[in-house]
């Protein structure tokens, strides 16, 4: 008995048993995929661009030219570079883990290979661990690429090795957690882009939870300590702040091993939940039914677009007549996006949030220049909303045509009298409509915020720059319009070029980040050359940057939309 127990225990902890042949198969397959090599190259390229940008920014900031002055700034530059690289790794690894594992299980189910796997001696835990570890292995390889760079920069001084080790530990723990969660979602949703969208929203919310940290740094409350231990963003912020000399973050209790342990425990729990769901799916498949677990109607309606459920055959909902553009009508046939009412509800909630924010701001006199708390909160609110709206808009555009390709409905669509222009316009309009509340709030919120700031500062006697404020408002609104055109154009272009939604989404998000990096470069040089050097006026430089961004986004977006229209009939199959 004891021998049998020891034998089964030793078998369980054996790494090769844990991962099974799945790990081997995944590594073999991924080594044949060109996109993995492209991904590594792009990662390295972006890292180099960011390091170069950070380097030049640091150089531009200084006014001294002597060798002694340059040497004295080396530590500062080294610190900023290390911070930039570690944060870049931290964010990229999580996003990539979410994307890479977003279709890990759903793909097996869709291809029908899951049932085949289930008939072999491989168990669910082995499948889940094999898939997770193989993807993590690739991510770790990618992270390892930047280690030599960190080692070189470390020579500049300014930062301790402790920070590098801590940040890498947090990055790894967060990556395992995000990957596990993404895998779990892939057992629930058949469409990988839905998993990616949910994961992105999850990451943005985690980012927004950092807000309290900005204001309660010295708090020693249990709540703050809990947030630090369960939120990787907060933990990373804590470790980063501690790396600066004279940091005030010491009062809140934070233990790195405890954080990693908690994240690891949560990951294990999610992995077992994934294995459980897979097993249930297999049983459903073999028994040919899921009648034992019928979903409630509200949940079925909510998830009907996401779940592979054939239980929605009942004629409970009315037949909707096709009105207007058929493409636009079809795109809005999904739950929570089909009616003006649902959009109005979302808009109402966001407006309420905005109103509460403004009211509290007035109540606590937060719009005066002396207390920039309003600006900080507003920036967090809008940047969070902006990130969600950006990702959603780009994702919906990027998956609009690939969805048709995956469902093999594109040939049917192109066999009708609809012109490519009508299809592209219908899809683009639908992507805009489904994200209209967020963009509308951003468009309305910006002028209201600036007007409130200006009015408040006038009443408090602080001089205001009305002309520039109104310029910001106008260019801010135009900027949102141009940004939406760019996002939809970029997404639609990749959607017509690529075959799978996941590939289109990855290409769109990757290009988006690339474009933003390029724009940052453009801004930097414009700021330096046109703004400061020619006029010496920082406001002019900011406005010029806005104009360039608007023109850049609008022109590129329109060109990409035109190319998408052109390509639609070229890559049908």
């Amino acid at each position, binding site marked *: 008995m004891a021998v049998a127990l020891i034998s089964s225990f030793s078998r369980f902890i054996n790494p090769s048993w844990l991962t099974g042949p799945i790990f081997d198969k995944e590594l073999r397959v991924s080594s044949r995929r060109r996109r993995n090599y492209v991904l590594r190259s792009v990662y390295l390229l972006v890292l180099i661009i960011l390091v170069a940008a950070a380097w030049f920014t640091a150089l531009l900031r200084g006014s001294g030219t002597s060798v002694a002055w340059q040497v004295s700034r080396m530590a500062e530059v080294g610190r900023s570079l290390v911070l930039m690289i570690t944060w870049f790794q931290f964010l990229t690894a999580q996003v990539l883990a979410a994307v890479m594992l977003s279709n890990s299980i759903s793909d097996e189910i869709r291809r029908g290979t899951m049932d085949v796997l289930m008939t072999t001696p491989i168990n669910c835990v082995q499948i889940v661990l094999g898939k997770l570890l193989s993807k993590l292995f690739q991510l770790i390889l990618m992270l390892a690429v930047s280690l030599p760079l960190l080692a070189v920069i470390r020579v500049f001084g300014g930062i301790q090795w402790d920070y590098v080790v801590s940040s890498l530990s947090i990055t790894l723990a967060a990556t395992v957690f995000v990957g596990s969660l993404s895998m779990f979602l892939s057992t629930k949703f058949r469409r990988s882009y839905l998993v990616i969208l949910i994961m992105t929203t999850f990451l943005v919310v985690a980012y927004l939870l950092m807000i309290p940290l900005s204001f309660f740094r010295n708090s020693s409350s249990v709540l703050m300590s809990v947030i630090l231990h369960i939120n990787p963003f907060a933990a990373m912020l804590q470790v980063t702040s501690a790396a600066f000399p004279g940091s005030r973050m010491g009062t809140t209790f934070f233990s790195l091993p405890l954080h990693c342990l908690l994240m690891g425990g949560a990951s294990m729990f999610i992995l077992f939940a994934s294995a459980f769901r897979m097993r249930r799916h297999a049983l459903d498949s073999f028994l040919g039914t899921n009648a034992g677990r019928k979903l409630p109607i509200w949940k079925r309606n909510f998830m009907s677009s996401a779940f592979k459920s054939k239980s929605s055959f009942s004629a409970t909902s009315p*037949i909707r007549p096709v009105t207007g553009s058929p493409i636009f009508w079809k795109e809005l046939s999904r739950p929570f996006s089909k009616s003006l009412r649902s959009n109005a509800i979302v808009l109402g909630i966001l407006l309420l949030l905005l109103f509460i924010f403004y009211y509290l701001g007035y109540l606590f006199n937060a719009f005066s220049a002396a207390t920039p708390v309003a600006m900080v909160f507003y920036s967090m609110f809008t940047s969070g909303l902006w990130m969600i709206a950006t990702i959603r808009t780009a994702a919906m555009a990027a998956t609009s045509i690939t969805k048709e390709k995956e469902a093999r*409905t594109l040939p049917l669509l192109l066999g009708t009298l609809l*012109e490519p222009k009508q299809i592209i316009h219908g899809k683009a309009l639908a992507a805009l409509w489904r994200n209209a509340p967020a963009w509308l709030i951003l468009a309305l919120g910006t002028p209201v915020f600036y007007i409130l700031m200006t009015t408040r500062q006038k009443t408090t006697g602080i001089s205001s720059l009305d002309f520039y404020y109104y310029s910001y408002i106008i260019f801010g609104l135009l900027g949102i319009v141009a940004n939406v055109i760019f996002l939809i154009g970029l997404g639609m272009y990749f959607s017509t070029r690529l075959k799978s939604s996941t590939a289109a989404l990855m290409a769109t998000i990757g290009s988006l980040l690339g474009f933003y990096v390029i724009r940052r470069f453009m801004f930097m040089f414009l700021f330096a050359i046109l703004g400061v050097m020619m006029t010496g006026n920082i406001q002019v430089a900011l406005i010029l940057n806005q104009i360039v961004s608007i023109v850049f986004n609008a022109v590129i977006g329109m060109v990409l939309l035109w190319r998408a229209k052109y390509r639609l009939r070229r890559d049908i199959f």
Partner: protein
Amino acid sequence: MIETKRLTKHYGNLTALVDLDLVIEAGDIFGFIGPNGAGKTTTMRILVTLLEPSSGQAFIDGLDITKKGKEVRRMVGYMPDFMGIYDDLKVFEYLEFFAAAFSIEHKKRKSIVEGVLELTDLQSKGSFTVDSLSRGMQQRLGLARVLIHDPKVLVLDEPASGLDPRARIEIRELLRELKRMGKTIMISSHILSELEEICDHIGIIEQGRLVFSGTMEEIRQRMGVQSKVRVQVANNQQRAIELLSALPEVQDVQSTGRYIAVTLDKDQNTDGIIARVLVNGDIDIVSLEPQQVKLDEAFLQLTKGIVH
């Protein structure tokens, strides 16, 4: 109704179609057969304007498909080999969506959708979601979609693949009904016996080349295929084989258990001769059945089984 002239299609280095010349008359059911990768689907996709030919021309009702794409699409209904469905739409919505995509007036759509649902026997399924239908019903829905704009020409790529016998029979009956309605139908299938039953003309394609086009009768003549007769005798089978082998019109005689398979030189009426010889030889005949050349035999003889 359908005509191609030296139609050629290249995919990079691969040549999918080589100088394909094809003529399909109005009102015909044309069976298009060939091994996998022979170029059937490519031809069909070109005809429905989803692919552009590398060279050559194709016409539907006299319209050049490369120049009059929209007009061609108006008169052609295409059902691909793997039919795509919008799983979040109901059957009625699905058909109405395509009616709208074919610019059918809003007020006419309902009656048209009801009409095609009735024709395809799907009236009771209008409020069901598309993905809840069985494979056979989805194929019928595909046919309903194809008919929504009342096209003159139907291009159907493997419409019966993956269906059970009952569903295949239903599809076959539906195609006969559509022929009666005057539609020109181009259909590809791997189930050759079915094509044989419903098609007026057959086209056999291999490696992008049309190796034969004509009626079944023309296939027999073109191949010079021998007629076969199956004979069952009540007594003395060996003696019967000897007598039949001595006939000059007979090329081969073989015993296949209870039967004797007689292969004749040409497609000629020699049943009378066989019967007379056997009766004169005091052999009692139980049955005498002429065996027609099957399409699958013709297919095997005309093609080499080489794929790209």
